[in-house]
C-alpha cells in the first residue's frame, strides 16, 4: 500500500507538461539512437548529458529525459536488426537471428510490431520489478557499514568482468585503470595532491563525464574512420514494412515466451555486470531450448523475435535496481546514468529513497509513462524511424563528434578538457582493438573515490586494523560472492561468452 501511495506521488511529479515533454523527447531521441548503428544506449545517453545540464534541468527532469533515452534505445535497436540484419546496438544482436529472416519472408511489419509489443511487456514488468525489489534491497543496504560498502564495490568490479569480457585479466586491468584514474587529484581526506604532476587542471581530478564521452562516443568515431565506413547500411535496399499489426494468433503464441523472458531478463539485469546484452542472450537461448521443438528458431520464428526483445528491455529495467538502491551500476548505460546523478550532487544508494523520494518515484512513474509513449512511437510510427536508417554514417559521425565536443566544452568551458577527451577517445579505440572492456574503466572512475573513502573510513574507525574489512558476516558474504563471481567465469564461463561474442560485429559493438 505504501508503495502505491509513493507511486501515486511519483505520478504527481512526472505528470507535468515539462516532464511529459522531456519523456517524449527522450523516447524519440532514444529510439533514433538505438536504431542507428554507431550510436547505442551508453554513448547516446553520454552525449545528451550536457544537453540536460544546459537546459538547467533539476535532478528529476534530467533523469526522466535520460532514462527515456535509455529505454528508447532498447526499443530502437531492433529496427535495424530486423530490417537490415545488423544490430543497431549490442542488446539487439540476438534479435537479428529471427527478426531478419522474418523480414526476408516479407513479414517485416509483423516482426517490428511484435518486437515492439515484446519490448513493452519486458519493460513494463521490469518497472514493476524495480518497484518491488529496490525497496527490499535498500533495507539490506541500510545494514551496510563502510567495510561492507568496500566489499560491495569490490564485488561489482569482480563480477563485471564475468560477462562483459572474454578475458578476466583484461577486465581486471580495466577496473584498475579506472580506479587509478579516479585517484588523480587532491586527496579528499588529507588534501595532498596525487598524480597531478604539477598540472593545475588536474587538481580537481578528471571529470568522469569527459572520460565517458571520450571513451564511448569519440572512440566510435575512430572505429568508423578506421574502416572508412561512410555509407548507410540501408543503401540500395528497399525497406518494405508491409502490414503493421501482428495477427492475434501470433501474439497469443508468443505470450508465454514474453512473460517467461521478461522475468529472466529482469533477473539478468539485476545481477551486477550483466546488463541488457546478457538479458537478451540468455532469454533467446532459454526459449530456444524450451519451445523450439520443430527447429524453427533462426528461420524467422516470431517467438525468437519476442524472446530477446522482452529480455533486453526487462534487463534494462533490472539494471536500474542496483544503481538506484545501492549506487552500484551493473551495466555501461546505468554507469552513465550514475554519472548524471553524481554530477547533480545526488548520491544514489539507500539514502536516496529516504532523502529524495521525489527523484526515485518521479523517475519510476516516468518510466511507466515513457514505456507507453514508446509503444505508441514504435508501432504506428515505426516507418518514421526506418527512414533514419538511411542516414549515412559519413554525415552522422561528424555530427556525433561535434556534439560531443560542444557538450564537454559547454560543461567546463576549457580546452584542456577537450584535450583530455581526445586522449580518452584514442585510448578507447586502442583498448577496443585489444578487446579490453570499457565499462569497468568508467565504473572505476565513477566509484573510485567512494570506494577509497569507504576503505579508509572502515580502517580508521577500527584504529588502523585492516582485518576489519572481513569482520562481519555480511562483508564476508559479499567477498565470497565477489570471489566466486570472479573465479567461476574462468572455469565455466568461457564457452557461454565465446558464443555470445561471436555474434558481435565490431562496428555495432556498442555495449549498453
Amino acid at each position, binding site marked *: 500500500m505504501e508503495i502505491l501511495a509513493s507511486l501515486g506521488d511519483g505520478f504527481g511529479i512526472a505528470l507535468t507538461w515539462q516532464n511529459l515533454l522531456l519523456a517524449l523527447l527522450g523516447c524519440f531521441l532514444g529510439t533514433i539512437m538505438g536504431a542507428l548503428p554507431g550510436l547505442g544506449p551508453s554513448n547516446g545517453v553520454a552525449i545528451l548529458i550536457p*544537453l540536460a545540464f*544546459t537546459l538547467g534541468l533539476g535532478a528529476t527532469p534530467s533523469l526522466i529525459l535520460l532514462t527515456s533515452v535509455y529505454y528508447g534505445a532498447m526499443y530502437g535497436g531492433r529496427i535495424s536488426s530486423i530490417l537490415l540484419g545488423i544490430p543497431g546496438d549490442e542488446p539487439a544482436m540476438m534479435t537479428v537471428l529471427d527478426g531478419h529472416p522474418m523480414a526476408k519472408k516479407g513479414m517485416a511489419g509483423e516482426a517490428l510490431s511484435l518486437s515492439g509489443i515484446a519490448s513493452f511487456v519486458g519493460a513494463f514488468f521490469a518497472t514493476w520489478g524495480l518497484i518491488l525489489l529496490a525497496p527490499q534491497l535498500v533495507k539490506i543496504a541500510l545494514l551496510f557499514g563502510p567495510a561492507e560498502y568496500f566489499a560491495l564495490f569490490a564485488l561489482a568490479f569482480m563480477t563485471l568482468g564475468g560477462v562483459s569480457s572474454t578475458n578476466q585479466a583484461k577486465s581486471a586491468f580495466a577496473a584498475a585503470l579506472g580506479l587509478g584514474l579516479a*585517484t588523480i587529484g587532491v586527496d579528499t581526506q588529507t588534501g*595532498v595532491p596525487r*598524480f597531478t604532476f604539477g598540472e593545475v587542471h588536474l587538481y580537481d581530478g578528471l571529470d568522469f563525464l569527459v572520460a565517458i564521452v571520450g571513451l564511448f562516443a569519440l572512440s566510435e568515431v575512430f572505429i568508423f574512420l578506421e574502416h572508412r565506413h561512410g555509407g548507410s547500411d540501408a543503401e540500395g535496399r528497399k525497406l518494405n514494412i508491409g502490414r503493421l499489426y501482428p495477427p492475434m494468433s501470433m501474439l497469443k503464441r508468443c505470450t508465454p515466451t514474453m512473460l517467461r523472458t521478461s522475468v529472466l531478463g529482469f533477473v539478468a539485469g539485476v545481477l551486477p555486470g550483466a546488463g541488457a546484452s546478457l538479458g537478451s542472450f540468455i532469454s533467446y537461448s532459454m526459449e530456444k531450448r524450451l519451445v523450439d521443438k520443430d527447429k524453427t528458431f533462426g528461420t524467422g520464428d516470431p517467438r525468437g523475435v519476442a524472446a530477446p526483445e522482452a529480455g533486453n528491455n526487462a534487463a534494462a529495467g533490472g539494471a536500474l535496481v542496483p544503481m538506484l538502491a545501492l549506487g552500484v551500476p551493473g551495466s555501461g548505460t546505468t554507469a552513465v546514468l550514475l554519472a548524471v546523478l553524481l554530477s547533480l550532487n545526488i548520491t544514489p544508494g539507500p539514502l536516496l529513497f529516504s532523502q529524495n523520494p521525489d527523484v526515485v518515484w518521479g523517475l519510476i512513474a516516468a518510466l511507466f509513462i515513457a514505456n507507453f509513449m514508446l509503444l505508441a512511437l514504435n508501432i504506428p510510427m515505426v516507418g518514421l524511424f526506418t527512414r533514419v536508417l538511411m542516414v549515412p554514417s*559519413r554525415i552522422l559521425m561528424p555530427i556525433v563528434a561535434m556534439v560531443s565536443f560542444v557538450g564537454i566544452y559547454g560543461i567546463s568551458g576549457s580546452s584542456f578538457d577537450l584535450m583530455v577527451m581526445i586522449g580518452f*577517445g584514442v585510448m578507447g*579505440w586502442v583498448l577496443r582493438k585489444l578487446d579490453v572492456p570499457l565499462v569497468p574503466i568508467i565504473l572505476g572512475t565513477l566509484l573510485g573515490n567512494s570506494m577509497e573513502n569507504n576503505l579508509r573510513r572502515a580502517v*580508521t574507525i577500527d584504529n588502523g586494523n585492516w582485518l576489519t574489512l572481513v569482520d562481519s558476516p555480511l562483508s564476508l558474504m559479499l567477498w565470497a560472492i565477489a570471489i566466486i563471481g570472479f573465479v567461476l567465469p574462468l572455469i565455466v564461463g568461457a564457452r557461454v561468452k565465446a558464443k555470445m561474442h561471436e555474434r558481435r560485429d565490431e562496428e555495432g559493438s556498442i555495449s549498453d
Partner: protein
Amino acid sequence: MSDRIFGVVGILLAIGFAISALAIEESFLSDAVGPKAFPLIIAAVLGLSSLAIVLRPDLEPEWPALGRLAEIAAAVVVMILYAQLLTVVGFVIATAFAAAYLAWRLGSSALEAVAVGIGSSVGIYVIFHLILGLSLAEGPLGF
C-alpha cells in the same frame, strides 16, 4: 604479440603508478590509512592483471593497415587543432572545418562535406546556443 606488448606496457604503467604513489607527500595530519595505500593496491592489481595478459595473450586483433592508422592519426591532429583553435577563431568556423574534414574522410564528396560542415556547425549553434543558451566559444567575429 599485441597482447604481450600491451601487458608489458601495463606492467610499466603499474610500476610508474606505484613509484609516484610512494612519492606522494604525506600531510602531517593523516588518517590511519593515508593517501598512499589505495593507489598501491590499485598498482598491484594493475601489475598482476598485466602479467596475466603477458602470460596468456588472446588472439591477435586485426590491426588496420598503415594508411588507416595514418587516417586516425590525422583525425586526432585535426581534433587537437580544433580544441586549441576553438577559442581563437570561434565556435562556428572551427566546427564547420572540423566537421567538414571528418565528413570528407568518411567518404563524402567535396560538396557534401562542405554542406555537412556548415550544416552541423550552424545547426548546433542555433540549437545549443540560440535556443538552449549554452555558452560556446566566441571568436573575434562574435560567434
